[in-house]
């Protein structure tokens, strides 16, 4: 009788232990899977995002076709062609390294430019324009594509 009891007790203990181990394995597995899923999603999303940005930047092509300095009102007027495969938005312009302030733009900044279209970007130069001098003009899109032209006033 007592032998049978002890044997029964040992049998119950194995069940509990097995259940506990099963629980531990399940919890640990769930935690590990959740972590790995989160890690994969995180890195995957980051990769997809970066890749998407890179791809869009690769498809984006811009060209400053002409620069016109209107002496009468001291506006610089640059015409930009979108010859890429995706629409673009002109975000910033630099003259000899100096950024044109947002308030200095009168036209073109933030305007969506369809492919094969031109946009006229008009602004007051951050540096004074002197006739006959050379200037480096950089146009930058929202995606970060840039086009540099050296222009003689």
């Amino acid at each position, binding site marked *: 009788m007592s*032998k*049978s009891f002890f*044997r*029964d007790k040992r*049998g*119950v203990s*194995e*069940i509990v232990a*097995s*259940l506990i*181990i*099963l629980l531990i*394995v*399940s919890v640990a*597995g*769930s935690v*590990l*899977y959740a972590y*790995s*899923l989160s890690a*994969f999603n995180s*890195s*995957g999303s980051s*990769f*997809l995002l970066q*890749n998407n940005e*890179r*791809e869009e930047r*690769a*498809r984006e*092509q811009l*060209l400053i*076709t*002409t620069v*016109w300095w209107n*002496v009468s009102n001291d506006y610089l*007027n640059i*015409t930009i*062609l979108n*010859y*890429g*495969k995706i629409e673009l938005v002109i975000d910033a312009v630099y003259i000899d390294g100096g950024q044109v302030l947002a308030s200095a733009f009168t036209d073109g900044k933030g305007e969506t430019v369809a492919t*094969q279209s*031109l946009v006229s970007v008009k602004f007051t130069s951050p540096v004074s324009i002197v006739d006959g001098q050379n200037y480096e003009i950089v146009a930058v899109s929202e995606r970060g594509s840039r086009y540099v032209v050296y222009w003689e006033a």
Partner: protein
Amino acid sequence: MNGEADMWFIGKLSRDKQGVGSIVGAVFMLLILLTGFTHYIVNVNVTEIYNEVLQDMGELDLKRNKENIEFISVTFNDDTLNITAKNSGSYNTHLIWLGIFDETSSPTTTQEYYKIDFYVNPAETVANILNVTIPTFEGQERVIQLVTELGNTFTYSYPEEENTSIYDFVDNNTSNIDESDPSDKGTHVFFSAQKAGPDGIYDNLTEANTGTGLTNTTLINQESFEDDWPPLLPSVWSATGRWNKESNEAYDEDNSADFDGGNGQAGDLTTCDLDCSDAEAIYLDFWYRENDAEANEFLLKYFNGADWNDIYDLGSSESEDEWLHYQDKITDSQYFKSTFKIRWTADTNENNDDCWVDFVTVKKEASPINYELDLEAQWTSVDYDEDNEWLSIFCAEMGNEPLLVDVWNSSGNDWQEDVLTLSEGWNSIDVSSYLVSSTFTIRFRGGTETADTNQDTWEIDTTFLYLWTDEP
């Protein structure tokens, strides 16, 4: 019994639980691996798409670099702007914007762009590249800009600045300034190719056969069998049976070809191959003699390249023991072969059935072959008063025969010959002494113009006059 049964049951249960734990762990591991693999596949696909985009954009850049538009002229016709331009690039160009800029210090108008939609094929020159109305600016200074779909811009200053250098490509190949007959000898394949380049597009000049009339060529010249037997001219003849050279009878000099007849004696005297492939007629002339030969014992035969044909029964003559003259003009084209031969066959049945042949002459009448090239090329409206005036020709693969260039000297009204011997690559010569009017003519001529049996072809890429005046 029950206790042992329980223990067995619990022990079994315990083993089952351990198995479930392993399975659960393995499932999680599989899920993790599957998730990782899925992300890997997605990343690979995304990277491939990105690479394809990069490749596409790279190809567009390559095309962009090979795009080139040249302004030929910008004029106004009845206040309508007429732009003529040429695509000197390698790809079809799509013009999408026309810019007109007033870059004077006090511009009267703003800088304007006009939307256009015009395709220009490589090497194509097109006029009226506009589908919009442009306010006239005739006589005023403007900068005109064409913008292409691939992102190139090409500019032109209007009105046209005085050119300091001009590339004037050849205009036509229809002149006959020397009034030669025929006006051209030889052919162009694609003369327009000379009007642009060098661009790898060639005009092939090919000689034409100008041989005319008929000439006689002697193949066997009065063979009288005096020297070698069988004769060796023009190459070795053959003789079988009793054919030999003997002096017992001779029409000319001391010997003749002689066949001593006899019962069952037969033999052939055969000339060598006589090339009559270009013949229009063959003339055979010889003297013969027989003694007691009967019909079919002394035959004349011709070879047509395949078979021997009996032509004449020389033994059927009743005039024996005297020299008889045989002449024939062969016009049957079956004998106009490179292996044409003549045979005298003797097949006798008695002694004294003797046969003789002497003084054999064979001539052929044929059209001569002579490949010549004489092709004029002419410029009209040439700016002939520049300080420097050079003729430049770019050639590719050349024929074996030299290709010469003559220049028409209008003051002497004749050709100044051999001013250039063309070779592969650039060929240039100062022609200022010949360029004295708005019309300038050259002639391409083959280096061998008589008895030229080889037809040559030369590849010409471009031909132009380079005209310029040095800046003061």
